[in-house]
């Protein structure tokens, strides 16, 4: 009984972590853009969904779609207002762009956070579940919504994996992060490529924001934790590897769940943090990293 509980609970929470990280895998792991406003974008999507569903009484489905739309918009805005100017700036040397993108998106994330807090306070809010009710798996109760979220998590990771590893555009993205000039020489239009990346990223991060908020809730106060979690999982999994992120998410998720059940809920995150350090010590490029 306990084993089944641990198995199911760990699976669910790992899928959530994976979902939160999948967009980050694309934007940072594959494309090399360290977008520290990641949590902020998730927040916007979640707040839009909550507001539309609840305050405007439009119900959870319209809420979810609105959340997606706002998330994509916010991602594109991030690209055009913060990231693109930095990438194109002549005043910033090529190898310095990372610290500027980091700092710029950090500030942008703070602005998002504060704006949301101003209008909605920093109280956590949850998006209404898309499906309510519980399933009984061998006397273990699992909310249907959790199953749905896990399914969507796997679906999006699967699709992303296909994109990066099996399509021309995907391989171009990987190459782009390593050597953008080489790509231009090969005839790729960088601008269009970036736009595509941010569009897909927007969808992924918005979906993650809305879905995570149905289970974990969101608040302007925990955007940092969301970004940190995504960052940890992507780096642990290894930059550039989508399957690495998935595996890392499950490692962290199960580690936390096992600790909570078998050791103590007090120190839930500590073993997983220590494991992180250990893995990196032994394998400095992460689990399946390529660069």
């Amino acid at each position, binding site marked *: 009984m306990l084993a089944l509980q641990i198995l199911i609970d760990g699976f669910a929470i790992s899928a959530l972590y994976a979902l939160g990280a999948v967009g980050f895998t694309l934007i940072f792991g594959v494309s090399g853009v360290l977008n520290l406003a990641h949590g902020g974008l998730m927040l916007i999507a979640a707040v839009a969904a909550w507001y539309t569903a609840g305050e405007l009484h439009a119900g959870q489905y319209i809420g979810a779609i609105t959340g997606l739309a706002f998330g994509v918009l916010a991602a594109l805005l991030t690209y055009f207002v913060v990231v693109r100017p930095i990438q194109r700036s002549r005043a910033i040397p090529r190898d310095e762009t990372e610290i500027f993108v980091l700092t710029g998106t950090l500030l942008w994330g703070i602005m998002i956070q504060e704006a949301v807090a101003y209008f909605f306070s920093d109280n956590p809010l949850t998006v209404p579940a898309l499906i309510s009710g519980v399933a009984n798996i061998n006397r273990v109760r699992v909310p249907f919504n959790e199953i749905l979220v896990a399914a969507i998590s796997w679906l999006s990771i699967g699709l992303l994996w296909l994109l990066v590893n099996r399509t021309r555009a995907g391989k171009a993205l990987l190459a782009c992060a390593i050597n953008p000039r080489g790509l231009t020489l090969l005839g790729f239009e960088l601008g269009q490529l970036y736009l595509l990346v941010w569009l897909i990223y927007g969808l992924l991060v918005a979906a993650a924001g809305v879905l995570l908020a149905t289970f974990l809730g969101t608040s302007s106060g925990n955007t*940092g934790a969301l970004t940190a979690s995504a960052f940890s999982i992507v780096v642990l999994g290894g930059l550039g590897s989508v399957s690495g992120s998935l595996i890392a998410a499950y490692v962290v998720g199960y580690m936390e769940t096992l600790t909570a059940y078998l050791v103590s809920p007090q120190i839930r995150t500590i073993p997983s943090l220590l494991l992180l350090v250990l893995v*990196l010590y032994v394998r400095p490029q992460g689990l399946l990293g390529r660069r």
Partner: protein
Amino acid sequence: MSRRVLAALVLLLLLIAFPFVASGYLLGVFTIAFYFGVFAMAWDLLFGFAGEVNFGPTFLIGLGAYAAGLLNVRGWPILPAVLAGAVAAVLGGLLLALPALRLRGPYFGLVTLVAVLLLQQVIVIFAGVTGGEIGLSLPDVLSVDARKNYWYALAFMAVSGALLYALSRSPAGLILQAAGQDPVEAQALGFNVAKHKLAAFSISALFSGLAGALMVFYLGTASVDTVVDISVTVQVIIAVVLGGRRTILGGILGAVFLIGVGEVLRPLGQLSTFVVAAIALAVILLFPDGLIGAFGRHRRQA
């Protein structure tokens, strides 16, 4: 070069004279800003010269602050407690450097982030000893007089700044710079890159720990949210990039600017943080070389 030194000296004199015209409140603002300035300079040493973006300044600051605070609660007087705090920070920094310096780029960043999260957890779990999220109240403080506190902070910042700046211009500093920008080449030239990075880490830890310890003796409390929090790291990174990365002294400018503007905008209430972030974003987009770069002479990098 001597023009810069002259300008710095004039500024220093003005700052020393400031308490004779300013209110206790303004002095308090600058006192905190000066400590943050040291946090920023210490980080710039590691980042600007060793080339590593790390999320860990708050780990080192927190170690120094809590070590000093805990000892003071047990009866140690301020000065030994502060020194012990600095030592604790250096030890912690070395412990962190062990796994960390094997890593590059975001992997390094992640390990430093994890260090912060672990320290937070430890402090909260042992709340009986550390006061947990509520914080530790310190029996002693540096001084109850606003002016004395200001001068202590100013002196500390000036000395730290001078030392760190001199270090950055020394042969060792140049090697660090080379190691940061092109480690392979530096190694090929025969320099022990790892040793120099370790040294940079330790020095950064020393100053961060000292500053953290002194700051909590100014505030009178040490708590997780004030010294072991990602927001501290965030403010440090922004201060350095805003002030001018790799300039050491830019860190002070950035810290004073951030905190100063935040205070000036206090009447805006809740929105002040938003506005400060927006201004900082605009500054780094428009002036990538930071405040020092915008108003100083542009020096060609060798």
